[in-house]
């Protein structure tokens, strides 16, 4: 019977056998399973590019080129770690400047975060990513220094403070939004 299924799939059965074989396949679960298996084998044999092994190698190929794809605009003369922390520093300022009261942001769980490379590529850093780096910074004094050396956080805080004088409706306190939201 298996030979007949195989022949059916290859179009080698005559019309009477075809009808007979199809009827049997319809009625017998075991034959239906054979039928599916043969189709699967046939698909794999006919389309080697779609086989599991090839999918794996195509992913490997993607992975090989991925870093290049993701980080085209990191200045080469800079150590990328330093650059990352520099961004973290400026981001710290952004978060610092605006999230004093939104301090919970700092504690947001680090789930579903974009990779740092993606962040750099997009030039858009989620506060949580900054948090990640800030946490790392606490463990490494070296990084801490980098943050301190970077003038941007302080500057942005200065800017925020200076800007705060012009908010027309200040709510409960003029520091609700400006001063009050820096970590």
């Amino acid at each position, binding site marked *: 019977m298996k030979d007949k299924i195989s022949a059916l799939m290859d179009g080698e059965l005559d019309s009477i056998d075809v009808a007979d074989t199809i009827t049997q396949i319809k009625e017998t679960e075991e034959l239906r399973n054979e039928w599916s298996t043969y189709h699967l084998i046939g698909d794999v044999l006919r389309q080697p590019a779609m086989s599991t092994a090839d999918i794996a190698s195509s992913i490997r190929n993607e992975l090989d080129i991925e870093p290049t794809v993701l980080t085209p605009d990191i200045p080469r003369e800079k150590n990328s770690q330093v*650059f990352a922390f*520099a*961004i973290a*520093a*400026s*981001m710290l300022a*952004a*978060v610092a*400047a*605006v*999230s*004093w*009261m*939104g*301090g*919970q*942001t*700092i*504690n*947001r769980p680090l789930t579903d975060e974009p990779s740092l490379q993606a962040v750099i590529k997009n*030039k*858009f*850093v*989620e*506060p949580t990513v900054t948090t990640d780096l800030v946490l790392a910074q606490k463990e490494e004094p070296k990084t801490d220094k980098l943050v301190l050396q*970077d*003038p*941007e956080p*302080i*500057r*942005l*805080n*200065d*800017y*925020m*403070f*200076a*800007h705060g*004088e*012009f*908010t*027309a*409706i*200040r*709510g*409960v*306190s*003029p*520091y*609700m*939004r400006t*001063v*009050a*939201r*820096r*970590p």
Partner: protein
Amino acid sequence: MSTGTLGGLQSVVNASASKEAQVWLQRIVDAPRKLNYTGIFVYSSDGHMETSRVVHMVNNEGEFERIEVLDGSPREVIRNNNEVKRYFPDRKTLVTEKRGLQKFFPALLPKPLSNLNNSYIVKKVGRERISDYECQVIVLEAKDRMRYSQKLWVDVATGLLLKAAVMERDQVVEQFVFTQLEIDSEIDKELLKPGYVTKSTEVNITNPVISGTVKGELGWEIENLPSGFSKINEVRRIFSGKTTPVGHITLSDGLAAVSVFIRPITKDDPLGPHESYPQQGAINIYARTVGKNVVTTIGEVPRVTVVQIGNSVKTYKIKWAE
């Protein structure tokens, strides 16, 4: 009666309603200068919320205030008139800042609320109770997408703002609300003292900001302003630890303010990493370079607005900055 007359009447009615709403807005601005209060408020934005305690006292020496964040890492703001100290006990850090423009805080506001009607539809929309206080609800509905709408809940008796929501269409961008409040209470001065610093032995005092300001032409212009915005102030500031003045142009639509800071890139003060800053609450920040200057635009407006303003900054003489 012709429709023209009806329309005319309607606009008179609208104008008077708007005028009444503006009286409420002025009460909001004036209330903290006259009132003592203590309370707990909740601030929320970006799906996060934080609870703070505020103690506010006014006497013949001025205005004094302490805000203490009750969630997460402890933080405090202590304000004595125009001097503001921020405490970060876990970092053993104290930041002292002084207000430059407004000598005695809050001094006169730079023409606030005056041209509101160009950009917002100002409406009184009924009464609601907040923290057991009867409040008048005022809505400032943005006429376009270049600004946020605001909904304000004002204590009928005192004019104190008890709840405020910044809205982008139907979405709340940020909000604060009092959950507990006592107005005109006797304030124990002890409550205005920082709670942490006395316990901490080492305190780093960082970043004292003295914003020296000089009125004058900066040689910068902002073309293509979003409708409703106009320049309300232009100064040079010297920030702490810096020698080069920073240009500071402030724009306002009567409610929302946008500040443009222009600083020259120098050897001592090189170009830092300027990236796109994510929005936090209602504040958006946008930085770009113009020639050998960094232009940073900050405002409680949608991102599109800081970007348009930032991109419209042009120089016609850059000598002062060199």
